[in-house]
């Protein structure tokens, strides 16, 4: 296996791709992988599906990660030239104030907040609400703003990626970390027994939407969803309520919202991790959902496993992952594929 270098993590994290506006991310991925897979296509919803034929071709194995990140949409251009906006996917308004954003991938803006000096006591303690927040793009009037921006334009956080001390910080690790893992596996340029479909999906955040059209196109036998999952291992929560711990390796899910992972698949993942001595941990909370829940319910049904790179502070502009966890996730997925038809038989 080639050495894992977290090759594309920085670019993937910094690209803007809010749910419904994934084109920039998709174009980047397509460009990098197109010569390393047998074929690829973009479907009606915008999913990128890359195909690698297997040496035995008896099973269709989907490896899925979603390209979209949470963000916002321009909902109104106000008279003073500022923009009203609403969340796309689940964003807590409390993480949004005092941040830099980008509209349509290029136009810079800021989300400010009333100065502390000017806030009354009850305002200081009140949570911000989206209806009171505005993006400022430097325009003086509605007319000036309307020349640069339209209703429905997408807004994303503009966080820069940093890598040091074996950790990476930046935006959108949910789920660009998953996309990076898949790209890394594709980089290996190895051939495996099963037919592989690398599915880079759209619109997971607003309700597992992109994955809903996968069955009809691929008819998979099984799937692995690679996610960037919540850690919660910070001082705010007692230890027994942490979902995962940074540094303890990829998190293997046995159950999440709307789905209990197929027993055979779950146990097979654990077996592979143990066999190759790959650091791993169970995901300890059943909250949150992934495309696995959707795959189980479409068409004839697809049993799926879920492996995640633990990430702190997801759904905020600044999350954190451990690069060792990232490498171990790539390793685990590669070893699973190397098991060939023996995996989850």
């Amino acid at each position, binding site marked *: 296996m080639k050495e894992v270098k977290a090759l594309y993590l920085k670019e993937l994290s910094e690209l803007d791709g809010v749910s419904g506006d994934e084109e920039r991310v998709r174009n980047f991925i397509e460009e990098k992988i197109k010569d390393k897979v047998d074929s690829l296509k973009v479907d009606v919803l915008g999913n990128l599906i890359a195909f690698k034929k297997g040496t035995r071709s008896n099973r269709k194995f989907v490896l899925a990660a979603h390209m979209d990140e949470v963000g916002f949409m321009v909902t109104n251009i106000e008279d003073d030239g500022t923009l009203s906006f609403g969340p796309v996917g689940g964003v807590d308004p409390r993480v949004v104030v005092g941040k830099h954003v980008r509209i349509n991938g290029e136009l810079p803006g800021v989300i400010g907040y009333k100065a502390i000096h000017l806030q009354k006591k009850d305002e200081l303690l009140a949570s911000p609400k989206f209806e009171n927040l505005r993006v400022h793009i430097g325009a003086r009037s509605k007319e000036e703003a309307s020349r640069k921006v339209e209703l429905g334009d997408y807004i994303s956080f503009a966080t820069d990626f940093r890598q040091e001390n074996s950790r990476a910080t930046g935006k959108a690790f949910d789920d660009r970390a998953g996309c990076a893992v898949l790209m890394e596996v594709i980089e290996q340029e190895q051939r495996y027994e099963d037919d592989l479909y690398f599915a880079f999906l759209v619109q997971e955040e607003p309700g597992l939407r992109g994955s809903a059209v996968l069955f009809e196109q691929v008819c998979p036998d099984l799937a692995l969803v690679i996610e960037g999952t919540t850690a919660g291992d910070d001082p705010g929560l007692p230890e027994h309520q942490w979902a995962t711990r940074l540094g303890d390796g990829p998190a293997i899910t046995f159950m999440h919202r709307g789905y209990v992972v197929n027993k055979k698949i*779950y146990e097979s993942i654990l077996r592979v991790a143990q066999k190759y001595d790959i650091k791993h941990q169970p995901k300890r909370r059943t909250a949150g959902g992934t495309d696995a829940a959707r795959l189980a319910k479409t068409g004839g049904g697809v049993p799926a496993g879920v492996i995640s790179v633990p990430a702190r502070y997801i759904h905020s502009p600044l999350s954190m992952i451990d690069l060792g966890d990232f490498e171990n996730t790539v390793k685990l997925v590669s070893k699973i594929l190397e098991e060939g038809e023996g995996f989850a038989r």
Partner: protein
Amino acid sequence: MIDLIQELTESYGPSGREEEVQKVVLKYLEGHIDGHKFDPVGNLLVWKRGRDDKEVLLDAHIDEIGLVVTNIDDKGFLRVEPVGGVSPYHYVGQRVKFPKATGVVYYEGETPEEQKKNLSNLTFDNLFVDIGAGDRSEAESLVSIGTFGVYDSYFYKNGNYLTSKSMDDRIGCAVLVEVFRNLKDPRHTVIGSFSVQEEIGLVGAFVSAYSFSPQICVAVDVTDSADHPKGLKRHAMALGKGPAIKIKDKMSISHRKVVELLKQAAQKANVPYQKEVLTFGGTNAAALQRTKEGIPSATLSIPTRYVHSPSETVSLNDVEGAVKLLVSFVDLELEL
């Protein structure tokens, strides 16, 4: 039918881990079906071929609500999270059964005031499970993170009233099994779907009908029975008035033509029935009706007291009525 009901309700089968109960179902169906298969997500599908080319699918979900282990501490105590709509109140002071261990569920409280506060605001975060392990490694020899548990409860009979855990929906499974055992030379092909993971989101039922082409689907599930002190005031359902033909719940409206056919079947078989409007919840019919280009679906319900508690109670009379009704139903022309 009592033995069947007892064995099914006492079996272990939380959502996602239903294999054991499915084996029990197959045991009772042996010799009464033409074939069976497990679909990709684990639903058990059985069938008996009919004389014509029409298909009817009857569904009952085979999973039950439960708990799953999410943490094991240094002293061997466990933390759990709910699987399906479980109220923590139904577990306090009760036992939970894991495949290799039984545990006591209790709540935290470092002072009497804290105990009282926790008891009135019970959540799974202030509960723990004691499986009698001295430390973490002893506990790990009995359970792991990701081990599922169910109510430790047993079946008993009080005259016509049957009580056990997981009447929801083992009673529906029992009805289905009994229907197959009573089918002789059926008119249409009858498919039995013993579907998985209903309690966490009707998961299995979204796909059970996919590989078939039924004209109609009928889900057999439990419904509330309000005939106990200060039961829900807008519910008309009661034990002993017969199986309930569901008109509506919060997740679907029964297809009105299937409702008419169910009524017809009841009249033909001389089975008294009640009509049901449930003001919360949903059944697999909501998922089955969405298969492909749609399948007209309805639910036939068994009125049940104390749903989702360890002591769900049904009337044998209603259960037997449901069997008779369905045997009559699958013999109708089924023109929509």
